């Protein structure tokens, strides 16, 4: 069988999708996480349920939404509630299994900066800010991050902690009393990083053809290689077909 061709985004979507479990309740954003959830629903996690921070539960959009507030998410969904309700009844109450997070910087302990590069009061680059991520990172049972593997995205410490991973590591997160378990995996175009017992992100899987050196060079801290670091299974023909033909035929995100 000839090897399948796929691009880095497809690779990330497929690997993120595989992290999701059947019956997971997922707090999801647009773009790559949205594709990962829908791919999981079409493959191994048919009962996965998606919640958008705009207050939409069980969306069945007929098109790929540009924003998480798109009208196509509402029509035909199971339930729509106010923003206060979605953050209290669903997220703070503990009804969310999985959150997807992103940001300009993710550090060694999985803390995320989506707020500012430079000084907060005198910003060098002013980023959008938290939105829902401060609470998602704290209160979802587990979190995933999907991002290209670049040194500037993975500094040793973020300039600003918009949302937390494991803070400075050890039991620092646990001591805050937040209910969620924190980031469980960071999926990049090179592989997958997961927290070790100290909360430090280490390389636990590499995509086919990727070397540890490549990953280390593109990480802002001395990246450790997990014992038994795996090679990910390449995307299957079926996964790629669903992605390309059904989910994103116009290739907006992939």
């Amino acid at each position: 069988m000839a090897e399948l061709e796929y691009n880095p985004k497809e690779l990330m979507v497929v690997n993120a999708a595989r992290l999701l479990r059947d019956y997971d309740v997922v707090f999801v954003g647009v773009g790559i996480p949205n594709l990962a959830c829908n791919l999981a629903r079409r493959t191994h996690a048919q009962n996965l349920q998606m919640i958008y921070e705009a207050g939409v539960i069980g969306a069945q959009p007929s098109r790929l939404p540009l924003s998480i507030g798109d009208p196509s998410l509402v029509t035909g969904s199971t339930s729509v509630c106010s923003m206060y309700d979605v953050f209290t009844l669903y997220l703070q109450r503990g009804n969310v299994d999985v959150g997807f997070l992103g940001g300009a910087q993710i550090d060694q302990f999985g803390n995320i900066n989506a707020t500012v590069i430079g000084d907060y009061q005198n910003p060098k680059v002013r980023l959008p800010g938290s939105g829902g991520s401060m609470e998602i990172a704290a209160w979802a049972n587990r979190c995933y991050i999907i991002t290209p593997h670049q040194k500037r995205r993975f500094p040793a410490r973020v300039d600003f902690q918009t949302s937390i991973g494991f803070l400075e590591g050890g039991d620092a997160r646990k001591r805050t009393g937040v209910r969620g378990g924190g980031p469980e995996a960071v999926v990049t175009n090179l592989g997958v990083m997961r927290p070790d017992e100290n909360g430090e992100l280490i390389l636990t899987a590499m995509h086919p053809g990727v070397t540890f050196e490549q990953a280390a060079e593109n990480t802002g801290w001395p990246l450790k290689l997990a014992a038994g670091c795996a090679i990910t299974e390449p995307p299957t023909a079926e996964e790629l077909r669903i992605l390309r033909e059904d989910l994103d035929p116009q290739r907006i995100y992939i």
Partner: protein
Amino acid sequence: MNSKLTSLSDAIHQYVHDGDLVYASGFTHLIPFAAGHEIIRQGLRDLVLARATPDLLYDQMVAAGCARKVIFSYMGNPGVGSLRRIREALEAGELEWEEYSHFSMISRLQAGASGLPFMPMKQTGATDLESQNPNFRRVADPYTGEEVVVVPPLIPDVAIVHVQRADVNGNAQVWGILGEQRLAAFAARKVILTVEEIVDEAVIRSDPNRTLIPGLVVDAVCHVPYCAHPSYTQGYHDRDNDFYLAWDEISKTEESVQAYLEEWVYGLPDRAAYWEKLGPEVHKRLQAGQRLSEPVNYGDY
């Protein structure tokens, strides 16, 4: 009951004043662009503009010089990128700001709408924003001793809320994404309701559970079809994603923004003219189509 019907320009003139804290509500959905444009046209100044997501509307109002300060929790062009005018003003130190997460922002409205002096939230472990914004405080849970984070009420001087249908008394029904429509209306001192469709009181009374905003908190009812464009009104017209993408280009320079404002705001008298100027192709592209709710029976008691 006396009708509260008035023109949008009269309502803005009467209820919005220089220096006011304005909350133009709507999470992606129902953003009252027409009201923002009227505020620009009337040349209001020194406003404090609060919204969870400032969106293109506040980018335009900041560019037009209406604002002294923004209060927000996500300052982006959803799905596209930055709000370039606000971002440049912030980076240049030309605009004050006050920042929250979505939940803490909305909790401020919940406190305001509920008449509470503060709302508690569970800790998130993220303390950087808390240390930058003195409105975040902490309170010890008297049952366990653990600390919760609290925020004070947000009481806008005026809330502007767009809804799908309302009667002339301001009893308003909203569906689709609800965002903070209802909380903004109950929290604010004055409420301007912009309405896609004015309906008979009997329509409202046929489905009272759909009425999220009662007339008794509403000061002005303005009939403004297509008020929300380029955002959208569920069931009435689509979101103009093309314009959200186009704004990313327009907003790259001060000049192109001012040209936009000249053509689409200052150069037009009202929303009807704006909608007409968009033209039939845009109208057609933004048609909503029909998917009706199954009725429910309230019973004839």
